[in-house]
């Protein structure tokens, strides 16, 4: 085990959580994120293998699925993001590389993103001020890449609320945008 101490994207050793009105916005640094891009012609094989790995069918276009431990969402044609608990003992990207031999290009993205989990009533009203997604139509299981505060972000709708993945270097700006919008709405 190495002895380098990690920092969260917001620059602290512990994740930050803010409750504004009915909405709670929590940084979640404990999830690994790995991109899986099917090799040429390996789309079907990759989808099948992903279903096995996830324990549920691979997400379709603009979809998010949650399996028993891993979740995944569609990010681009023939490309998915797989997310699961960050386990230093068993690196998710290493496991996926092993499970998807010659089928996919697997890239660890955990460090590249900041993840905010958002819960509570009124998320629809909040997202009206953040991005152009039609949250009422997205409902559960929707996943889209969009722009929040000039930053390219993934927005995932699921049973627990909404998850936003944004570029890690812009974490503070993104967090500020979420908080400011929440204060403005609620």
């Amino acid at each position: 085990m190495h002895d380098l101490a990690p920092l969260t994207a917001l620059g602290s050793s512990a994740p930050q959580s803010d409750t504004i009105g009915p909405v709670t916005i929590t940084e979640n640094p404990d999830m690994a994120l790995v991109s899986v891009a099917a090799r040429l012609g390996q789309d079907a094989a990759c989808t099948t293998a992903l279903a096995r790995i996830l324990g549920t069918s691979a997400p379709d276009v603009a979809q998010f699925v949650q399996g028993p431990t891993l979740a995944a969402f569609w990010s681009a044609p023939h490309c998915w993001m797989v997310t699961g608990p960050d386990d230093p003992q068993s690196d998710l990207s290493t496991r996926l590389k092993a499970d998807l031999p010659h089928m996919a290009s697997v890239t660890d993205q955990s460090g590249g993103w900041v993840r905010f989990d958002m819960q509570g009533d009124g998320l629809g009203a909040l997202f009206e001020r953040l991005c152009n997604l039609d949250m009422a139509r997205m409902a559960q299981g929707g996943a889209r890449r969009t722009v929040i505060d000039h930053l390219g972000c993934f927005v995932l709708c699921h049973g627990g609320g909404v998850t936003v993945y944004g570029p890690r270097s812009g974490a503070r700006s993104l967090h500020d945008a979420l908080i400011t919008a929440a204060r403005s709405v609620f």
Partner: protein
Amino acid sequence: MIINHPLLGPCDAQEFTYLGDARLIDRPDGMADGAEDVFYDYAYLRDNPAGQHRELWFHEAGDRSWLVITRNTLTHEIISVELARDVARKQGRSL
């Protein structure tokens, strides 16, 4: 404008970056004889019609698909939207 993305459905044109004439797909072979003249045409002689035009757009803030969009540049009517990769293959491009 609203671009009806073949995979994602209606998307705001603000999410896209514009490139121009879809003929840019037809890149000539750089190793062929007389490539210089053909490349000159390819790089510089493109149409910019007032009317129906096939254009390349990149879904930069979305799924990063390149699209071929047939659009009327006068009315902004969008006649068709295709994945550029499919178009390229249909036009015989491969490796």
